[in-house]
């Protein structure tokens, strides 16, 4: 067990290190931008005096490493600075938006994960059957669709032609859960369609790979059949790779969510980030990018740790 603890500690340490590196990159890249926050804030009407005062107030004259540390400290304590576009505290904006995004991604995952695992396992079990071929071609087609294509098709059919759902998903905090779910369903469905295909193909590949193992052949030659081969012999070994597939796709979801939020004008972090980008609101872009990166890194970390603790060689050392 000590070895597992050490390995997990190492992974966690590595995760912290990577987050640290990512924050450095995000900070550094923005430093390359000509001009600074104060020029952006004041625009054309800035005089050297007012600029000087502003820089002193925001601490922009401090050396880079000090500014980096205070920025990073702010990020960690929840004080993310002020948005340039509307002068509001960034943490206020980001927290509310990120919860909305989690809500949307959560619905998508809740539909996509069980669906794709089931289809993936079925396709693997009936390999090379008609079912498998249809699934192969249709998932290949569906991963080729850009997210906005899926989204607009759904809007065209369900919002415009059938009028079943709103084409704009303006959710807000004090909305009833059901209303919220109803309004988020169409964007969630777009995301589901995109990641289900990916997840299913990976699940299928994992299971096919596993079923070719000699110990599965041995089980057959021992007279073990049907579901028991899957549940008793294959699944315990499939656990880690399948968790890996799921987290990988949830990470992919984080990226896909940006486009879908824009299409449906859904008030999530992705929408906020895109707005910040078009307003050149750098502090907000930095905060948003760091949030996305953090979620992404944490998901991958989770997958790593699961694969460590589900490895029998590590669980039961010699």
């Amino acid at each position, binding site marked *: 067990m000590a070895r597992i603890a050490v390995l997990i500690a190492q992974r966690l340490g590595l995760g912290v290190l990577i987050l640290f590196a990512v924050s450095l*990159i995000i900070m550094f890249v923005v430093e390359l931008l000509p001009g600074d926050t104060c020029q952006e804030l004041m625009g054309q009407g800035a005089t050297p005096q007012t600029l000087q005062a502003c820089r002193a107030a925001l601490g922009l004259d401090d050396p880079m490493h000090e500014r980096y540390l205070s920025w990073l400290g702010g990020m960690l304590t929840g004080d993310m600075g002020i948005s340039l576009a509307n002068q509001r505290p960034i943490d206020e904006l980001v927290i509310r938006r990120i919860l909305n995004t989690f809500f949307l991604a959560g619905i998508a995952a809740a539909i996509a994960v069980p669906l794709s695992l089931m289809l993936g396992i079925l396709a693997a079990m009936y390999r090379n059957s008609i079912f498998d071929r249809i699934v192969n071609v249709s998932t290949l087609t569906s991963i*080729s669709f*850009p997210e906005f294509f899926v989204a607009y098709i759904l809007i065209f059919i369900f919002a415009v032609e059938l009028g079943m759902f709103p084409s704009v998903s303006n959710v807000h905090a004090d909305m009833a859960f059901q209303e919220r779910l109803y309004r988020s369903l169409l964007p969630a469905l777009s995301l589901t369609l995109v990641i289900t295909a990916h997840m299913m193909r990976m699940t299928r590949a994992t299971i096919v790979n596993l079923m070719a193992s000699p110990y599965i052949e041995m089980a057959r030659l021992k007279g073990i059949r049907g579901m028991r081969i899957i549940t008793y012999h294959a699944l315990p070994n499939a656990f880690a790779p399948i968790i890996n597939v799921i987290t990988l796709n949830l990470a992919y979801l984080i990226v896909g969510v940006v486009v879908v939020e824009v299409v449906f004008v859904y008030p999530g972090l992705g929408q906020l980030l895109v707005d910040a980008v078009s307003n050149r609101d750098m502090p907000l872009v930095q905060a948003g990018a760091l949030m996305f990166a953090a979620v992404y890194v944490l998901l991958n970390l989770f997958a790593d740790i699961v694969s460590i603790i589900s490895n029998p060689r590590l669980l039961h050392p010699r």
Partner: protein
Amino acid sequence: MKLLEQAPLSAKFGMAIIVVYVIAAVFAPILAPYPQRAIVGSQFEAISAAHWLGTDHLGRDMLSRLIYAARNTVGIAVAATALTFLFGCMLGFLAATIGGWGDQLLSRAADTILAIPTLIFALMLLTVFGTALPVLVLVIGFLESPKVFRIARSSAMNVVVMDFVEAARLRGEGVGWIMRRELLPNVMAPLVAEFGLRFCFVFLMISALSFLGLGIQPPLADWGAMVRETAQLISFGVPTPLIPAFAIALLTIAVNFVVDWFLYKQSGLKEERA
């Protein structure tokens, strides 16, 4: 030729589509009825004999822009993918060949870049560096290359451990010779497949960026941007924005079908050798 005949329907379909796109891209000025930047009608004209697909929000011919976009979008995607491969493969082979600390350094750097979601990172970099075409190609080449690096490194690793590479090392051959003569010919197949897949990825990302307003900039025609420009039509029940979106999807499907067949062929060959 015989190989082509044996290809499954999906792969043949894919190849035919790719040929059509290439023709559209190469002969765009001949095929398109109007220039891509010309305003030739009023806003959002409906489908007519003069404008087969109607006009966009500025009154430009949709069909012409659709054809020109093949040139712009696909051209940029190919350029960005090529750059990605140049970076990724060179560093990947180098890491596999030299091993040790150099390998560690390159691999950890790749991990760090991969730790930031690509689209988010791209949004940030494009905000900072602007959206000129060379910048776009460079940024995407930079962000996608760690993925190619990983594939190139791991396929090269599989070859590096083989005895014929050791034999070359013992003979006293240099790193360059080993990379060029021993590694490269043996990793071509997986890398060709990866090129196809990576192209799809890059192509979809450029489209997404254009759709978000940070990719290929107007007045150049681009499918992602065309979707954004005409998006409002959808709520009036006009499917125009779906057309450029479909153009993106169709090419990606075609490439995916061909790559899928290629991969299937490859795995079949491997099984036989074993």
